[in-house]
């Protein structure tokens, strides 16, 4: 593997030793570990605890991102969905989701008993699940009913995420075919993003988003700093997300991760500056996230240069993809489908192109078979997380309406759905507007004359 120098390895262990120091127990022991790297066994439990906890920074990141990029009148509803969704997902995973992932045993974690060494996988997978379950919130925000959301989150927690993880990881049938998804571009982000795509197709666009003449009507974000904070939180969480799978090369993976985030953001901002003269913070943050998503599948197998190229392509893809989905009237307020769905698929494919390690090689290094298996994985992902989710949503919608009534949508979902407004004492819907814009702006779709 590249960049596996003695220095970087030693640094990783030192970081672990520092963490050991804050835990009860003899700190001198931790120092001894740092002195003799070759003989050390990595404290797996501590590593899982540390990186899993970092991953738990990602759902709040997604919550702030989705809330900031939507309208003030839905702020409480959007943030609450992500927040409570994590709770539902964890409970569902404990009841049966984890057992599904293990192939049918371990309901209620009964199999673990009193052995603390064995709890790591559940803790880690629950963290990943919370990320996957939080992704659709942004795409379906401002119109998703809470009851429908509860049901969908259970679906993701019990079936959608665990089964695909079973197939793609831990010796599942895709993994046996050679499919590689290191940290979960496909397993986590692809699943979340494609469920979001299915949801956005079933729910339909927000009222007023597309007009009859074919024009796309922007519905602007209400809090850009909050959205950017969410993006920052996600980026920090991503260090754990990617490095958690590879303690033996944590710093090289972390290096690839930060390069991927930066590359995606720079590429997206450059595209926006060249096409509209301004970087558009909301697209730039999408670009950073798309770069990070794309890096996850290959973070341990690619060089820093390949990471920058992969993420730059992801950043450009997201700019085009946002317009593509608008063209097909698939309304995604925050760009989650483009970032996690398109970015996730690209990340999975990128393994088959750029990977260059002892265990995995892509087509640029002579192994075309890898690209084929990755493409097969993407097809399965599309059918499962996109197609099967769509069927589930269509059927579920007949019993529990997935979408709120139009009058609730116009008024804002905060009071009707959660009983609390996000910003009391502020006027959220102005008398100057026709009801759906939520700000003092009149939106003029591209290609239409202003009157």
């Amino acid at each position: 593997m590249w960049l596996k120098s003695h220095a970087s390895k030693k640094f990783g262990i030192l970081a672990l030793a520092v963490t050991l120091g804050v835990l009860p127990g003899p700190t001198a022991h931790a120092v001894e570990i740092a002195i003799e790297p070759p003989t050390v066994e990595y404290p797996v439990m501590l590593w899982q605890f540390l990186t899993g906890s970092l991953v738990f920074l990602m759902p709040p990141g997604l919550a702030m991102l989705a809330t900031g990029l939507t309208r003030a009148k839905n702020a409480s509803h959007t943030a609450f969905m992500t927040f409570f969704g994590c709770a539902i997902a964890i409970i569902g995973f404990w009841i049966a989701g984890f057992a599904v992932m293990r192939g049918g045993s371990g309901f209620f974690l009964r199999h673990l008993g009193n052995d603390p060494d064995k709890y790591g996988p559940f803790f880690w997978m629950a963290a990943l699940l919370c990320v996957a379950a939080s992704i659709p919130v942004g795409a379906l925000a401002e119109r998703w009913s809470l009851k429908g959301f509860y049901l969908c989150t259970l679906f993701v927690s019990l079936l959608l995420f665990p089964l695909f993880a079973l197939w793609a990881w831990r010796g599942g049938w895709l993994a046996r075919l050679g499919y590689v998804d290191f940290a979960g571009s496909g397993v986590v982000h692809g699943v979340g993003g494609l469920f979001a795509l299915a949801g956005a197709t079933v729910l339909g666009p927000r009222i007023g988003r597309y007009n009859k003449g074919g024009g796309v009507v922007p519905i602007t974000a209400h809090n850009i700093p909050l959205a950017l904070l969410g993006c920052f939180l996600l980026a920090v969480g991503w260090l754990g997300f990617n490095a958690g799978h590879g303690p033996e090369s944590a710093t090289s993976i972390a290096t690839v991760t930060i390069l991927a985030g930066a590359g995606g953001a720079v590429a997206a901002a450059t595209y926006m500056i060249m096409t509209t003269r301004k970087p558009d913070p909301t697209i730039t943050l999408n670009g950073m996230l798309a770069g990070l998503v794309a890096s996850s599948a290959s973070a341990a197998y690619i060089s820093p240069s390949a990471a920058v190229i992969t993420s730059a392509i992801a950043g450009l893809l997201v700019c085009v993809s946002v317009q593509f989905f608008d063209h097909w009237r698939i309304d995604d307020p925050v760009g989650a489908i483009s970032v996690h769905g398109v970015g996730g698929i690209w990340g999975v494919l990128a393994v088959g192109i750029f990977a260059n390690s002892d265990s995995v090689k892509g087509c640029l290094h002579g192994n075309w078979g890898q690209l084929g298996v990755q493409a097969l994985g993407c097809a399965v992902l599309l059918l499962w997380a996109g197609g099967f989710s769509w069927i589930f949503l269509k059927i579920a919608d007949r019993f529990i309406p997935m979408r709120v009534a139009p009058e609730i949508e116009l008024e804002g979902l905060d009071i009707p759905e959660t009983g609390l407004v996000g910003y009391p004492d502020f006027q959220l819907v102005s008398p100057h507007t026709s009801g759906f814009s939520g700000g003092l702006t009149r939106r003029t779709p591209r290609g239409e004359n202003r009157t």
Partner: protein
Amino acid sequence: MKKIEAVIKPFKLEEVKEALSDFGIVGMTVTEVKGFGRQKGQTEIYRSNEYSVDFLPKIKIEVVLSEDKVEDALDAILKAARTGKIGDGKIFVLPVEEAVRIRTGETADAAV
């Protein structure tokens, strides 16, 4: 008595307030408002789609003063609020029938 209502650019408020204070105005009321004139708002781009901001933020100043001071007050506001660019705002002068200071019950010029 007259009332001056001036709609100005928000960042000019401080200068206008200073100019009016220098000239002896002891009170004013300020409101954050939105609106458009011949400038007709601005066009911006959000996620690659154009939209227009038709109501731009402005500050409305209201000052009530005796008639002999009106000319000078208008001059002061004009000098302070003008940038020469579109969107500088407008000034309106209205007659005021009566003014009462609530604390003392004084009326007319004594009250402003």
